[in-house]
C-alpha cells in the first residue's frame, strides 16, 4: 500500500501514460470479450440518447397534436409508448451486457495474472522465497493483481459514455445549432470538473486508506500486547494512542467528505443549469420558428440523463495510478530473472544412496559465511547425526544436500553425481527432507501424505504405524479422508510433525534428511520412531541425515558430525566425540540434561 499512499499529484502525466499502456495490454489479452463489452456499452450510450430523442419525438408527434386537437392521437401514442419501452429494453440489454461482459473481462484478467504469478512462484527457487516476505507475495497474487485490473470495471462504461456524447452532440446538431452550443459548453465542463474532482480526491482517499491501516496496526499491536498493557496498567495510555490514530483517520475521512460536499452539488447543478439555459435560449429559437418545442424538450432531457454516466470517465482516470502501482509490483515478480535449473540426469539404482559434500560453502550475506569448506561423507545406508549449536549451519546444510538451495562453493554429490545435474523429479524421488517447520496442505490426510503419488492405503497405514501416527489418524472422524483444512488446528504440533514424517517415508526415499523434525514429539515417541527408522536403514532403507539434539537420538547414529561456526569441528561416533571433545560434551550434555533424567525414569 505504501507506494500507493505516496501517490500525490506527482508526475501524473507519466502515470496516466503508463496507465493507458497497461490498459492496452489488458485489452490485448481479452480482445474479443472486451470488444463485445464495448459494443454493449455503445448500445447503452446510443439508447440513452435515443430515450431523449423519443421524448422529443413524442412531444412533437403525440403530446402536442393530442393537446392541440383535444383528441388522443392513438396511432402515434402507441408508437410513442412502444418506442419508450423498446428504447428502455435496448438500453437495459446494453447495461446488462456492458456490466456482465465487462465484469467477465475483469475477472478473466485477474485470474490470468493470478495464474501467471503463482506459476512464477512455483518456478522461483526456495532462496528467492526466503528473501521475500510471505505477506508481500500473497498480496502480489491477490490485491496487487486486482489493483491492476480494477480499472476495467468502469472502462467499458467510460468508452460507452464517449460514444454517447458523440451521438448526443450529433442529435443536438440535427435538432438545433444554437442549443448545441450549450451542450458543447456543459459537457466538456462536466468532464473537466469530474477530472479535477478525482484528482483532488485521490490523494485524500489514499491518505484515509493509509490512516485506516495505521488504526488497524495500533489495534493489532495493542491487542497482541494486551498482556503487557494490562499487567502494566497501561489501558488509558493505549486508549489515548488509539484515539489519536482514530481521530487522524476521522479528520482524513472528513477531509474526503468536504471535497465531496463541494464537488457533488456542483456536478449535480451543472446539467440543471444547462437545462435552464436551453429553456431560455429555446424561447427565442421557438419564437423565431428556428426549432420545434420537441427539440427543446429533447435537449433538456438529454442533459438530465447524460450527467450521471459522464462520471465514469473520472472513475477510470482515478483508477489509473493504482493500475500502474499494481502492475509494477506484479511485473517485479514475473520479470524476476532468478533461475534454478535442474539437471537432466537420472539417479540410477535403488536402495540407499551415498552422500558426499566437497568444500561446501554458503552465506546468506556476503562476508558472513554460514558454512565454509565443509567436507562430509555419508555412507549409503548409514545414519549420520549433525550436532551443533544455533547458527552453526545445520539447517543450511540440510537445504544444501536436498538442493533446496545451491551452495556458493563446492558441491553436493549423491552416489558421486552432483545434485545440480540430477533431474528434479529424480532428485525428489530419491531425497526426502522433513523440515523444522511442518507444512500441511488444506487437504485430506491421505493427500497430505501421498501428495498424489501413487501409493496405496496399506502403505500409508504402514508408514503411519512407523511414525506412531496410526492411532490418532484412525481416531479422526473420516480417517485418511479427514480434511485437515478444517481440522488442522486441532492437530497438535507433534501430530503434524508425524504426518510430515509420514509424507517423507511413504515415498521410500533413498536419502532421508530430518531437520529437527521431531522437536514437538514426546521423547519416547521420538525414540520409537527413530529406532524404527534406524531399523529401516539397516534393512536397505534410506541413508539418514538427522539434525539431532537428544543424546538418545545421537546414540542411534553411526556417525556424528559436530558443526561449529559453519565448519566441521569433529566427527566420529558419539562415544569417540564424547571422549575427546570437551565442546561436544558440553553441547550434548546441555541438550540432554532435561531429557536424560526424564528418560531414566
Amino acid at each position, binding site marked *: 500500500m505504501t507506494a500507493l499512499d505516496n501517490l500525490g499529484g506527482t508526475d501524473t502525466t507519466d502515470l496516466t501514460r503508463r496507465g493507458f499502456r497497461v490498459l492496452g495490454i489488458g485489452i490485448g489479452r481479452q480482445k474479443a470479450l472486451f470488444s463485445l463489452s464495448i459494443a454493449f456499452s455503445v448500445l447503452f450510450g446510443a439508447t440513452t440518447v435515443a430515450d431523449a430523442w423519443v421524448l422529443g419525438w413524442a*412531444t412533437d408527434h403525440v403530446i*402536442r397534436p393530442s393537446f392541440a386537437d*383535444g383528441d388522443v392521437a392513438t396511432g402515434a401514442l402507441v408508437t410513442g409508448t412502444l418506442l419508450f419501452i423498446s428504447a428502455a429494453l435496448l438500453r437495459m440489454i446494453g447495461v446488462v451486457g456492458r456490466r456482465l461482459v465487462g465484469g467477465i473481462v475483469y475477472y478473466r484478467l485477474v485470474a490470468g495474472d493470478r495464474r501467471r504469478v503463482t506459476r512464477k512462484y512455483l518456478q522461483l527457487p*526456495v532462496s528467492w522465497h526466503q528473501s521475500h516476505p510471505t505477506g508481500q507475495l500473497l498480496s502480489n497474487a491477490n490485491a496487487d493483481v486486482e489493483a491492476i485490473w480494477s480499472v476495467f470495471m468502469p472502462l467499458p462504461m467510460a468508452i460507452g459514455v464517449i460514444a454517447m456524447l458523440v451521438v448526443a452532440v450529433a442529435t443536438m446538431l440535427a435538432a438545433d445549432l444554437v442549443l448545441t452550443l450549450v451542450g458543447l459548453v456543459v459537457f466538456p465542463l462536466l468532464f473537466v470538473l469530474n477530472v479535477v474532482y478525482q484528482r483532488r480526491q485521490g490523494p485524500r482517499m489514499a491518505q484515509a*486508506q493509509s490512516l485506516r491501516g495505521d488504526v488497524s*496496526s495500533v489495534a493489532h499491536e495493542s491487542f497482541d500486547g494486551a498482556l503487557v498493557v494490562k499487567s502494566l496498567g497501561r489501558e488509558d495510555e493505549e486508549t489515548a494512542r488509539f484515539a489519536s490514530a482514530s481521530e487522524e483517520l476521522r479528520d482524513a475521512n472528513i477531509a474526503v467528505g468536504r471535497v465531496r460536499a463541494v464537488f457533488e452539488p456542483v456536478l449535480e447543478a451543472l446539467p*440543471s443549469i444547462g437545462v435552464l439555459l436551453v429553456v431560455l435560449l429555446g424561447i427565442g429559437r421557438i419564437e423565431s420558428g428556428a426549432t420545434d418545442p420537441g427539440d427543446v424538450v429533447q435537449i433538456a432531457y438529454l442533459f438530465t440523463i447524460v450527467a450521471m454516466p459522464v462520471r465514469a470517465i473520472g472513475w477510470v482516470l482515478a483508477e489509473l495510478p493504482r493500475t500502474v502501482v499494481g502492475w509494477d509490483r506484479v511485473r517485479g515478480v514475473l520479470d524476476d530473472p532468478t533461475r534454478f535449473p535442474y539437471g537432466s540426469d537420472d539417479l540410477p539404482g535403488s536402495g540407499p544412496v551415498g552422500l558426499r559434500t566437497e568444500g561446501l560453502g554458503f552465506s546468506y550475506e556476503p562476508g558472513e559465511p554460514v558454512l565454509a569448506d565443509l567436507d562430509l561423507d555419508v555412507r549409503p545406508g548409514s545414519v549420520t547425526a549433525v550436532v551443533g549449536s544455533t547458527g552453526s549451519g545445520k539447517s543450511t546444510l540440510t537445504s544444501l544436500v536436498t538442493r533446496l538451495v545451491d551452495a556458493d562453493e563446492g558441491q553436493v554429490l549423491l552416489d558421486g553425481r552432483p545434485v545440480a545435474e540430477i533431474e528434479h523429479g529424480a532428485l525428489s524421488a530419491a531425497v526426502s527432507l522433513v523440515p523444522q517447520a511442518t507444512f500441511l496442505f488444506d487437504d485430506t490426510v491421505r493427500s497430505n501424505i501421498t501428495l498424489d503419488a501413487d501409493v496405496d492405503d496399506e502403505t500409508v497405514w504402514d508408514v503411519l504405524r512407523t511414525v506412531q501416527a496410526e492411532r490418532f489418524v484412525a481416531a479422526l472422524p473420516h480417517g485418511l479422508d479427514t480434511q485437515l483444512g478444517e481440522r488442522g488446528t486441532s492437530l497438535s504440533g507433534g501430530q503434524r510433525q508425524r504426518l510430515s514424517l509420514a509424507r517423507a517415508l511413504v515415498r521410500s526415499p533413498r536419502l532421508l534428511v530430518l531437520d529437527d523434525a521431531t522437536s514437538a514429539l514426546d521423547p519416547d515417541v521420538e525414540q520409537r520412531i527413530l529406532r524404527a527408522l534406524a531399523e529401516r536403514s539397516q534393512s536397505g532403507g534410506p541413508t539418514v541425515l538427522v539434525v539431532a539434539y537428544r543424546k538418545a537420538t545421537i546414540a542411534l547414529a553411526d556417525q556424528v558430525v559436530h558443526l561449529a561456526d559453519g565448519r566441521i569441528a569433529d566427527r566420529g561416533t558419539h562415544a569417540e566425540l564424547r571422549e575427546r571433545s570437551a565442546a561436544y560434551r558440553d553441547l550434548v550434555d546441555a541438550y540432554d540434561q532435561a531429557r536424560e533424567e526424564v528418560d531414566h525414569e
Partner: protein
Amino acid sequence: MSDKTTPREGSLRIIRRGLALSPAITEGWRRTVLLALLGTAGSSLVPIVVQRSVDSGLGDTRGGVEGDRIVLVVVLAALLLVVSGVASWAAKVRIFTGTERGLTQLRVRAFRHVHDLSMLTQNTQRRGSLVSRVTSDIDQISLFLQSTGMILVLSAGQMLVATAVMAFLSWQLTLVVIAVFVPLALSLKFFAERMSVAYDRVRQTVADLLTTIAEPVVGASVVRSYAIEGRTQQRIDAAIQTNYRSNVKAQTIVSVTFASAILVGGVANAAALGVGVWLGVVGDLSMGTVIAFIFLITLFVGPAQMATQVITEAQNAVASWRRVIELLETPADVVDPGPGSAALPTGDLGARFTHVRFAYPDGPTVLDDVDVTIAPRQRIAVVGETGSGKTTFAKLLTRLMDPAEGTVALGRDDQWADVAQVSFADLRRHVVMVPQEGFLFDSTLAENLRYGRRSATDDELVAAIGDLGLVDWFEALPRGLQTRVGQRGESLSAGERQLVALVRSALADPAFLVLDEARARSTPRPSCGPRVRSRCCSTDARASRSRTGCPRPRTPTASSCSTPVASSRTARTPSSSTRAACTSACTPAGWPRRRSGSGRRLGHWHREQPEPRRRRAAQAGRQRSRGCGRAGRGHPRRADGGLDGRRGAAPHPHDRRGHVLEPQPERVLGQGRDVWPHARGARGAPRLRRRHRARHDRSCGPDLPHRCQNLLRRRPAPLTWRARVLAAGTAPRSSASSWPVVPRSRSVGARGSPRRSATARAPVRSSSRPARTSRRSCPGSRS
C-alpha cells in the same frame, strides 16, 4: 460474542442503539434533515421549470410564448438551484462530520472495552476478531455511511420531494407511476437475498483462494523438495476458477438487478405518456405536466438501479454495527473498583489464595479449592503439566481474571486486601507479570521501556539496564535508547526482546513479580542451551544439594515434584522443609551443576542480601566482572547476554529465512479464513503478514525461558527488585529445565539471612492434603 446475546435483534433497533452509542451522529439531526431535503429539492426544479415553460407557450406556440414569464421562472429556478446547492453542501458536510465523529467515539469506546475484557488475555484466538471489531467493522460502517448510506439518504430525499411534486401536479398520474414501480420494490428483497448469498459465496471462494495461493509461498520448500509443483498449480488453478465463477455469478445478479430499473423506467415513461395524454384530453392535465412527469421519472430510476446494492451493503453495515454493539454490551468481567476501595500495604507484599476455584465459561474447572499463602520476599516456582492451571494461577494473582469462587488477596501479616477491591492503578503498580514472550511495541527502545514506568527519565532507563547487567548489550545497540525495535520488536532477536521485557518490569519496580512462561511449544530448545550455560556463572547445585542432605536426584520429573497445582489440582506451597526437600529433589535437569567456581557467586549473592540497595548495584557490577565477565569478554560476539551474537537491527540471516519457513501454515490459514473476509483487497495482506510474523515469534519462543532464567540466575540485579514470586509456565519439560530459581530460593531459606529464613519458615496455609508428591520423590530430605 454472538452466542452470548439472544436472538438477532431487528435492524432498526440496532441502528437506534448504534446511534445512541455515537451521539455525535445524531447531533443537530433536525437541521441536517432539513438541509438535506432542501438540497435534494434542487433535482425537482428542472421538471417544474419544464412544466411551467411548456405551459407558458414553449410547448404550444400557437398561443404565443410568454417569454417574460418563462424568464422569470428560469431566474427563480436558478436562484433556488444555488440555494439548494448550498444546502446540499452544508448537509453533506454535516453528515460526514457527524458520522465520522460518532463512529470515532464508537471505535475508541469499543477499543477501550476490549482492553477491559479479560477475554483478550484469556483467548488469543479471539484477538483477530476483536481487532476487526474496532477496525474493519467500523470501517465498513464508515464506508457505508459515506458512500451507499449517503446515496440512500439523498435518494430517499430526492424521491420524497419528487413524489410531492408529482402529487401536486397530478395525483392520478402519480398513482400510475407508483404502480409501475411497485413490482420492482417488491422484488428488491428477493434480489437482495440472492445477491447476499452470491457475495457470501464470493467471500468464501476468496478465502479458499488465499489458502491455496499461500501453499507455494509458505510451503515453498515442501513443494520444491517433493517436486509437487504440478499438483500445487492444479489446486491453485481450480481455486482461481471457482473464485472466477462465483464472481461472474454475483456479477450477473448485480447486472440484472441494476438494469431492470431501466426497463421499469421505460415502462413508467410509456405509461405516463399514454395516461397523461389521455388525462389531458379528457381532463384538465396540462401538456407541461405530462412532459414534467417524464423528467420526474428519471429521479426514480437512479435510486431504483442502486436499490439492491444499497440494501445488500446496508445489511452488511448493520451486521458490522451489530457486532460492535454486541461487543460493547459484553460486560467487562474484571472491573476496576476505582481508587480508594482497598489499599495495599506499602512495602513488601505476599499473596494468599483462599478456596479459589476457577473455570473458563462453559469449560472445565481449572483450579479447584486452591489455598496458598505466599509470604513476602519469597521466590516461588509453580510447576505442572500442560493445562494444570499454572497460567491461570498467575492471571488470578495479577487479576487479569477473577476466580469463580474464593478470594485472592495481597498483603502481609494481618494486612490483606482482596485484589478485586484494589484499584487497577494501585494493583498494577505493585504487581507485575512478565509474560514470557517479550512483546514490544513498534517504537523506540526508550518508549518500550517506559511501558514499565512512564515517568522514567533516560538516565533511569540506562540505570535499569545497567542494574540488570545488560550494559554490553545496550552499548552494542546502534542508536541506544532511540533504537527502533520494529514491528513487534522484530528488529531485535527474540532473546533481546525478552531482555527488554525484563528491564521493563524492573522499571516497574513491583512489590510482587510474576513471571509466566508462555505456552512452550515443545521440548526445551537445546540449541541455545550450551551457549547460555557456557557464559553463565551458575550456582553449584551440587553443593546446595549436599547442604540439604537431599540425595542427588535421579528420577524426579517436573510433574512429580510440582506444586500440587498440577497433580492434585490443589495448590499449596509446601512448608519450608518440604519445600526445601522438594525443590532440591526437583532440581531441574537443566540446572547447571558443573562449574564449581561459580559457587562463589552464590555466596556473594547471599551476603549482599541484607545490604542496602544502593550498594547492591555496585556489587552487582563488580560481580559481573568477576563471575561472569570472563565468558562475556572472552567472546565479544557473545557478550550480549546469551543472544546469539545478534545485534540491533541487523537480523541474522536465519531470521529472514524464518519468516518463510517457521510459520505453522495451516494455523495461519485457518485463521486467515476468519480474517480475510473482513479484510477486503489490499488491506488484508499486511494483516496476514503480521500474522506470519507473530507465528514466527512464537515458534522462536522456547529459546527464551533459558535466557530469561539464566539472566535472573546469573545476575544479582534482579534481587534489587522487591519482587519475590515467580509463577511458572506451562509445559512440564521446559518448566523443569528453566526453573533453576527454585533451588536458589531454597538455599536462601536454608542458609541466607535471618530474615529470609524466617519468611521461608513462615507457616504456609495449605489444604489438608500433604505434599504427597514431594515426599515421595524425596523421602530422605524430610528428616
